[in-house]
């Protein structure tokens, strides 16, 4: 086994609390006084980042053998270890900057001359992001009398909305949100998948790490501005993805649209459970390996294409959507799902970028990524009243998503890869869907226990979701929902087969 594969081990060990347990360090002389700790945010982010590293090294270990690359990888790894652990501004900013700079080395050395121009663009955007974050941090620190801990600084954000917007913009640029996305969509055309998923995953972690450490960003009118901008960005990026005829650029747009969706979901419920935001953000980070590995997979048809779709769909969006209880949020999530399904299915892999990987490597890698997602979600689920309410609501929602994706596939623009078989699969698909709906509604109507989670104002979809949450009290609903989903999946498989 290549020694490279051992690199993420420290990250994962720290994430799982195997090194030092729940520790907190204060080093007064380092960087003017740093605070590092292994709290819930750090653990979840480390786990996600560790998985990104593991997957990237697993599929790209042959590519990473060149010694020139190692200092850059090592620097990136140190930065990605420090980023989640940093509880103070100085060390967070150090990791934030170092990650951007070190990944430039990875891009240039892995991408070669193809990435020359886009590398420059990437670097400029990273520097602008770094500058914005620094520029916004200074007034916050000054207002809090030199305080450098992130938690008190977050509390200051409500009094400094301008600084909050600058910080938000800086984090968004780093994460590859719209307007700062150019590097990502361009790299998607030029960089092989292993470094691409590394760059995409780690920078997403850097941007989201900032959002998670400074939750004050999504409060007040600054949060409202971000919410509106994210919505606009989401519409634009979904359009961008649907307009693509090639798989890789479409995947790039999907990543950008998912960042926008997370912003929309987070800002629509700023008071929601922070653990939920954290879980969905970490889940989104681990989605990156799956998305970019899909770009390497051969064009599929039939049941296999369905698998591709399932891997690409933004499952992570379930959690914040549940928490917000806003029915209209179904629409943006649906749009992103459609874009993701579209990107996973169109075109074929670019053989000039990605050498064909043995199937077992891809399978193992994707299994690692999925296992990582489960590891991230499980602690959150453990704090809730059970798995079944998630399954119930999830099944309901994803039926809609898959239906929508299928309809777009059938009636969408011409760039869809190939016409569907003539068997008029909608006839196969729709009846089970209706049956599932019917069973679900009946199951919900028979339940009258108080909801397991608080969902705010009363609304029809919200009540529906609340009822769905009660499914955990009895197995009937859960079983019904699961069976309905299974039926639909089988129907879909038959329809495409």
């Amino acid at each position: 086994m290549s020694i490279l594969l051992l690199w993420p081990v420290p990250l994962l060990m720290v994430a799982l609390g195997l090194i030092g347990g729940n520790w907190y360090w204060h080093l007064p002389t380092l960087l003017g006084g740093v605070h590092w700790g292994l709290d819930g945010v750090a653990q979840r982010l480390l786990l996600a980042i560790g998985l990104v590293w593991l997957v990237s090294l697993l599929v790209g270990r042959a590519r990473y053998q060149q010694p020139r690359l190692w200092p850059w990888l090592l620097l990136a790894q140190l930065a990605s270890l420090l980023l989640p652990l940093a509880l103070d501004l100085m060390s967070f900013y150090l990791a934030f900057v170092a990650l951007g700079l070190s990944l430039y080395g990875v891009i240039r050395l892995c991408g070669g001359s193809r990435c020359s121009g886009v590398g420059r663009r990437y670097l400029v955007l990273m520097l602008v992001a770094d500058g914005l974050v620094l520029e916004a941090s200074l007034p916050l620190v000054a207002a809090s009398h030199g305080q450098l801990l992130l938690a008190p600084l977050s509390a200051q954000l409500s009094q400094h909305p301008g600084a909050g917007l600058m910080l938000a913009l800086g984090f968004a640029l780093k994460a590859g949100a719209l307007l700062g996305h150019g590097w990502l969509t361009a790299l998607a055309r030029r960089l092989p998948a292993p470094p691409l998923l590394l760059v995409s995953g780690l920078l997403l972690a850097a941007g989201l790490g900032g959002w998670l450490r400074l939750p004050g960003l999504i409060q007040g009118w600054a949060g409202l501005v971000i919410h509106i901008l994210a919505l606009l960005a989401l519409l634009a990026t979904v359009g961008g993805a649907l307009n693509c005829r090639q798989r890789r650029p479409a995947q790039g747009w999907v990543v950008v649209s998912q960042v926008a969706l997370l912003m929309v979901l987070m800002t629509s419920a700023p008071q929601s459970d922070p653990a939920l935001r954290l879980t969905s953000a970490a889940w989104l980070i681990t989605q990156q390996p799956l998305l970019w590995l899909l770009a390497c997979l051969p064009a599929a048809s039939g049941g296999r294409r369905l698998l591709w779709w399932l891997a690409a769909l933004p499952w992570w969006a379930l959690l914040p959507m549940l928490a917000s209880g806003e029915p209209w949020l179904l629409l943006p999530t649906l749009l992103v799902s459609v874009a993701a399904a579209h990107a996973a299915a169109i075109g074929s892999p670019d053989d000039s970028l990605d050498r064909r990987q043995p199937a077992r490597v891809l399978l193992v890698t994707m299994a690692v990524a999925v296992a990582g997602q489960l590891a991230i979600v499980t602690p959150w689920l453990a704090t809730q009243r059970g798995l079944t309410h998630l399954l119930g609501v999830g099944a309901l929602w994803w039926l809609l998503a898959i239906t929508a994706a299928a309809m777009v596939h059938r009636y969408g623009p011409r760039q869809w890869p190939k016409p569907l078989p003539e068997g008029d699969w909608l006839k196969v698909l729709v009846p089970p869907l209706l049956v599932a709906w019917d069973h679900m509604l009946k199951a919900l109507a028979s339940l009258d226990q108080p909801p397991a989670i608080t969902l705010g104002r009363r609304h029809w979809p919200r009540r529906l979701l609340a009822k769905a949450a009660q499914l955990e009290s009895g197995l009937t609903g859960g079983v019904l929902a699961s069976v309905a989903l299974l039926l639909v999946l089988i129907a879909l498989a038959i329809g495409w087969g």
Partner: protein
Amino acid sequence: MSDAALLLITVSCSLVGGIVIFLLPEQQRGWRTAINLGAALIKILCLLLIVGAVLNGQVLSVRLPFLPGADLVLRADAMSLLFAILSALLWLVTTIYAIGYLEGAPHRRRFFGFFSLCVTATMGIALAGNLITFFLFYELLTLTTYPLVVHRGTPKALAAGRRYLAYTLVGGVVLLTGVLWLQQLLGSVDFSHGGVVSVLADSHRPALVAIFALLIGGVAVKAAVVPLHGWLPEAMVAPAPVSALLHAVAVVKAGAFGVVRICYDVFGIEYAASLGVLQPLAVMAGVTILWGSLRALVQSDLKRRLAYSTISQASYIILGVALFGPLATIGGLVHLVHQGIMKITLFFCAGNYAETLGIHAIDQLDGVGQRMPLTTVAFTIGALGMIGVPATAGFVSKWYLGQGALAADMGWVLWLLLASSLLNAAYFLPLLHRAWFRVQRQPWPEEHIPRRPGRETSLLLLLPPLVTALSVVMAGLWAGAPFSPLVWAQLITALEYRP
């Protein structure tokens, strides 16, 4: 050892060393090296003893009669030690580098002789206790650096030397006018925490504004403030150790240190603020910061680009002073040290490229990171420090300057710092890109030192930039450690802003 002896030895050990070097025959390489290094070590030892005394609350001083009403005064306080220690340490490193750089070159006796005299002048400026002493050593510095600038003796070097002399001597005359005018108003002008001019009546305020302009105008020439900076890029024709000396140890630093002394210990920062002279000074520094960075962008010669970078960076020190407030003062003072170690690293590396491979132009840097990885690592650290990347010395300076700007309610300075950092990135990162990511397309211009396994260049050339690059990282990472430049700057600031 008495205070007087300690201060006199500190200043004069390099003077004596310089005179002995002039008397030695050209071929006495071993003796010359021993005297150079011995004098540098004695100076550092003396300064360590002085530091111990100053930390115990003492202010060491010695007064020597010079002219009626104008004594020569040497005085060691926290601020003078900041500059003196920087100069002494960097002199040692530069001497080691110069020994390697000038290996086999002609006129080494002349070079090292003036080199030592130059450091004597710098130490005199650092330890000057009044304006007259400051002025005398300041002019001595001009005279001793001129032979270093024209060392190569080429027509270009001679022209650069003439220009250097013209600028600095005119600056000296302006400074002298200010010194004499103030002397006429106050009598002897000894440096003192909180300044000395506030005892004058309000009727003298217009005169004091004019004197401030004259004094600052005089020292601003050496600090290379726009539009008085023209000599500096031309002086890049000098050998690399001289460039390092001019930019990081002696000349530019002496100018910037002069601004600090005049503002804090002659006028007193609060009185200067009440005169309304700090705001124009801040604007002047801001213009210089931007102009230097913009001009650096379009330079194709490596050393000229570094020279314009110095013009920009030295004004951070002046900006820190002009912002009025303890945080900005800390930023300015600490940048005096940090800019020195970062810039000397860059010049050492530029010298290594020139001396080893004959590289002078920026487009010749392609692939040099493969050929000279250690030098390029040092160059990278220096450049990142200049940009202000965290964990380097430059970040600490910029952080405190930014905080100071907010405390002084001058928000525009934050945008200035951001613009300057982006411009720094725009002219440094392409160099790093060429060095690390481009492949060598043509043979090196003049490969003087062939590549050997594990040795990219001479050890004497390689060690100094590595040591200074390491100190750039140490100063950034362990900024809060005892005796760090930051802690020392905080100590000085506490004295200057004592209620």
